[in-house]
């Protein structure tokens, strides 16, 4: 078995164990949150009899172990139950809301990579000079404020005072696009409607930038620090002594080892954005899974909480596996060190 496949098999095995642990943990935590889910679901006007009937229907009147048993049995059938928040199957909700968040997070992730890494490289190459100073100040600014603050600032600047961008939703009301993948940028192209595609991209710019700014700053600063450390290594000095061009030194010798820690952080940031996007989604009325997750927690919608957390956990694990494989690809020492462990 190739080293990469070995890493993949090992990570998948660990992921299954992690998922079981996460499901048990979330199951327990969801039941610790104050409030009776049946009472919250039925609303303030419900009679005690109505609340009791729903509690029985949801198995809430049974011991915790029995409740977990019902959950696992339903999960094995691919049934995440009914959401008390939307009154629909949780799987329907996830399938509807996940693409919106994934699309936003993917674009934000791409922005993190295509802006964060080059900025870090640029700052490292010009260490101590004005490009470095400017980039450091800007990236410090982006990491020092959370994404929802950027969301409000960007909205005020580019939607309220300077009405360039739309402020709410994924696409203008005038476009009715048939849902195929749930990714509007893809569905509009599949429909051959380029005006709608441009409109969807237009709607995505502000939320994606707000979501990615902190990550861009983090990626840039980390890449800069790693590259500066690499530049101090003897083999770089040797390459410079050979008279290689600075671009070649940076690209061929300094960048690759510096990317490994940056990739790890970007991978974690990317996965974390799935959960952290909720305030950006709230500000821009983006109908995504993060916002759904927060709403269901506030309403103690047990099935939906479990479903959302499981999806986010699975995404986290997938992203981690991809990052591990990338790192193994970039770093032969990691790739070959797994041989003994397997």
């Amino acid at each position: 078995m190739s080293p990469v496949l070995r890493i993949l098999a090992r990570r998948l095995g660990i992921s299954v164990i992690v998922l079981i642990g996460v499901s048990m943990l979330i199951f327990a935590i969801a039941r610790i949150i104050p409030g009776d889910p049946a009472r919250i679901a039925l609303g303030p006007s419900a009679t005690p009899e109505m609340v009791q009937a729903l509690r029985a229907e949801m198995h809430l009147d049974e011991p915790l172990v029995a409740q977990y048993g019902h959950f696992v049995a339903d999960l094995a059938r691919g049934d995440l139950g009914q959401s008390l928040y939307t009154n629909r199957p949780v799987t329907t909700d996830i399938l509807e809301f996940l693409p919106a968040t994934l699309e936003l997070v993917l674009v934000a992730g791409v922005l993190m990579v295509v802006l964060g890494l080059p900025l870090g490289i640029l700052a490292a190459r010009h260490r101590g000079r004005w490009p470095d100073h400017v980039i450091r100040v800007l990236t410090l600014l982006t990491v020092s404020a959370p994404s929802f603050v950027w969301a409000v600032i960007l909205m005020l600047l580019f939607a309220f005072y300077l009405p360039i961008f739309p402020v709410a939703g994924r696409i203008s009301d005038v476009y009715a696009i048939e849902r195929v993948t749930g990714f509007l940028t893809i569905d509009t192209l599949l429909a051959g409607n380029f005006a709608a595609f441009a409109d969807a991209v237009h709607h995505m710019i502000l939320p994606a930038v707000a979501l990615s700014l902190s990550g861009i700053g983090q990626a840039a600063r980390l890449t800069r620090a790693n590259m500066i450390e690499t530049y101090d290594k003897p083999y770089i000095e040797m390459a410079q002594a050979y008279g290689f061009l600075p671009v070649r030194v940076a690209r061929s010798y300094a960048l690759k080892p510096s990317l490994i820690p940056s990739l790890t952080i970007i991978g974690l940031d990317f996965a974390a954005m799935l959960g952290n996007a909720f305030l950006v989604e709230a500000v821009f009325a983006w109908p995504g899974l993060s916002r759904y997750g927060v709403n269901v927690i506030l309403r103690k919608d047990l099935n939906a909480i479990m479903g959302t957390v499981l999806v986010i956990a699975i995404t986290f694990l997938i992203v981690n596996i991809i990052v591990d494989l990338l790192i193994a690809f970039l770093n032969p020492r990691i790739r070959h060190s797994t041989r003994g462990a397997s």
Partner: protein
Amino acid sequence: MIKTKGVFAAALVAATALTAPALAQSVLRLDEVAVGELDPAKASDYADSILMFNVYDTLLLPRQGGPGHVPHLASGWDVDGVNFTFTLREDVTFQSGNPMTAADVVYSLERMQALGQGLSYLFGGVSAEALDEMTVRFTLEEPYAPFVSSLVRLPIVDMALIEANATEDDPWAEAFLSANGAGTGAYTVTAHNPQSETVMALNESYFLPIGEAAPDEVRLRYGLEAATVRTLIAQGEHDIASQWLPPEVIGALAEDGAQLLTESGTGAFYVKLNTARAPLDDVNCRRALAHAFDYGTALQMIEIADGVSQGSPATGAIPVGMFGANGPEMVMTRDMDAARAAMEACPYPAADWNLEISWIAEVPIEERFALLMQANFAELGISSTIETLPWALFTERVTTPEGTPHISQIFFNAVTGDPDTLLYGMYHSSVPGTWQSPEYLNDPMVDAALEAGRTGATEAERSEAYAALNALLLEIAPTIYGYDRQSVFAASDRVSVPALSDPAMAFGLDGMGFTFRLMEMADG
């Protein structure tokens, strides 16, 4: 570098040019808190009510600008003791094209009772039968005078369409009705995303005439943030903001030129005193607090603009304008002399008190009221602690008298517009320990007055019963009647809403002011 600048400039120009095409139809855009429940049998909150009143119809409607009801899907009705017989209009069809008959009315009641959600409790002990195709009779197990007003909460559904979409696992087609409409209403559901918006289109075959200027399309958005709403209205992308915006934001929108729409007469702000715990188990101690509360300052705190406030002075337990209310001359005012006199009669020395004043975490204005009460009561030498309770925790705490805070703050509306649905759940001794009844009141005279209000044969009898109840409640002070609630909505001048701007057109039922067919769009 020049190339980069050029690309950026081109992108900016492209972004600016990417404005949406002009709308061909008049579109009304408004927002509410998440989530909109489309199934009318499960509807309970404000967003649900807006959907229900537009996608579905009821046998009768509240009379605009005054008390009582007028026929709607029914052409008339007769009352004979516990039997209520309705004759249906013959010109009504559902949005599917099916004709509406008495069988649909019976099915609507049975479906609501079977699901047991939303406001189904209003129809406990009620049965219905179709006497013929266009006549239906409701029979009550015991006399209940407000039954007629309850019918504004019984939307009539399309039995044939629902049965066609029912399955063995889903006999009442809940899945279908959570995403689709099955009513006779003036608007049909064209798209529904419970987290983002419901889109409705005008029903061209509605049985009543609809004005030319009524919106062709309505987009009811959910869960918009205050900053987003403000920006959308500034961009001309939104028409009516929800009532849940902070007063400062509504005020700022008004300063920017928004009109302010109002809805009142159905609910109030109640400061509930736990009568089962010392020192508030004594009537004089409670009276002292009721006299010491600064009603005027509370009203100032919710003022939005000159002449527009989120409340008006209370005159008792029943909001002014509702059946059985006290006249506006009986406004509640602060009286520190009376408060001190009541404290002297209170058997618990003020120095020994430590009141728990709670406020609901999701309702920030209540924190300000809690601070106001703390300051007011301190003038009587009473110390207190303020406690923040998330709604979910509050509903659990109130299930026992010991766990219920001394003071709880609740905004409450009558779901049918009748005082019975406002007061019975609050004060009858048979229903203590709910979020509506943290007073734990157990008073036979109050119970008797509530029963008299329910069973009075005539309006005069009922009115007398509620007037007596109002006086009694003011006497025994289980609650501080803070103010009568008024919902305020900031709206663009694109839309005209007579039911929310002209008292003579108001419905006296929460949410019914948002009957879209009665609205007028400037570009309609």
